[in-house]
């Protein structure tokens, strides 16, 4: 297993299936330390599957995934647990526990994984709430927050341990434009001040172009392109141009396969 020190993530020839259906068709993907990488692609392109593999939540059919020098596919539970403490994940809806206050949700990882003094934990929690513009919301229940606030609270919890690696699933989905821009700026600041490597899955072009060092675009389980914002914008690939110009893709239709799918339900 090779992993140069420059790369914090190395995925090689990743193939994965859900049942008989092949989702990822041999993905090669690497991310450098300190990079902000945006993963784009339509629904069903495999971007969420790739994300779940990097979080070690799925087992691939074949291929390798090395994160921070840990072979994720073959690692034991203890090694994975240690790796996960260096990773923060902010899910789409915030994914807070509804029975706990916002503050209790955010400090949960610290109480589970560290032996820090309660004073330190409280101040760390409030620092993160301040950072996310949620000062004073510590004692509210998640059900009392708006969608944008939930998302920021989820991000506060994701970064409470100052992870080396932050995964962010659809940060700006469902946010008003001003809040979305603020969140983008926060992502940039987190990288600069905390030396974080940040992986963002999104389909918001504007946000991707603003924050990404490089963008990876997936189509039908394969990587169409990985490049800088300029390289993506200047790509001659018609699928990339369609994505940028928000045009529906022109599906190639194989009549025989189509009829077979409709009549037998099989590919």
């Amino acid at each position, binding site marked *: 297993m090779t992993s140069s020190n420059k790369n914090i993530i190395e995925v090689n020839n990743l193939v994965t299936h859900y049942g008989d259906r092949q989702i990822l068709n041999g993905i090669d993907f690497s991310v450098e330390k300190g990079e902000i990488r945006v993963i784009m692609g339509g629904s069903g392109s495999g971007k969420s599957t790739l994300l779940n593999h990097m979080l070690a939540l799925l087992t691939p059919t074949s291929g390798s995934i090395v994160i921070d020098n840990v072979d994720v596919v073959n690692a034991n539970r203890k090694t994975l647990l240690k790796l996960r403490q260096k990773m923060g994940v902010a899910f789409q809806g915030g994914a807070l526990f509804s029975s706990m206050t916002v503050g209790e949700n955010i400090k949960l990882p610290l109480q589970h994984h560290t032996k820090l003094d309660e004073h330190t934990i409280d101040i760390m929690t409030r620092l993160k709430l301040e950072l996310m513009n949620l000062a004073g919301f510590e004692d509210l229940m998640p059900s009392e927050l708006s969608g944008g606030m939930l998302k920021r609270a989820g991000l506060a919890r994701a970064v409470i341990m100052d992870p080396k690696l932050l995964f962010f699933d659809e940060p700006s989905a469902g946010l008003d434009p001003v809040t979305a821009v603020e969140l983008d700026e926060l992502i940039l600041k987190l990288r*600069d001040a905390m030396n974080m490597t940040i992986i963002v899955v999104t389909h918001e072009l504007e946000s991707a172009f603003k924050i990404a060092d490089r963008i990876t675009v997936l189509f039908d389980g394969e990587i169409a392109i990985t490049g800088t914002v300029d390289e993506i914008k200047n790509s001659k690939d018609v699928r990339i141009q369609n994505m940028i110009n928000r045009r529906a893709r022109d599906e190639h239709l194989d009549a025989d396969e189509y009829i077979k799918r409709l009549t037998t339900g099989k590919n």
Partner: protein
Amino acid sequence: MTFEQKKHLHYQLLALTGEVDLHNSPQVRKQLLDIVESGYSVIVDFSALSYIDSSGIATLVEAYNLAKNNQLSLTIVGATGAPLQVMELTHLNKVFPMIDSLDEIKG
């Protein structure tokens, strides 16, 4: 992370080197609170500090508050790079007295 502590007439200097993170910030906390509780103001030297995480920052906040409540001070000297950016990100550069070098104190 290592630190060096020096006693002066009215303050004690705590020089942090390397990285302050979840694993060693409790040590820094004990050191800082001990200094303040023994009635000294404290100057924390950041000039050889390459990284400080939020548990380190929270520790500084706690010590700053304790110093303030005891009419003492907590000053940061020589912050640059990532530690300075963390101070700016959390707006604590507007709260803590921040000086460039120890020369600014003598005189």
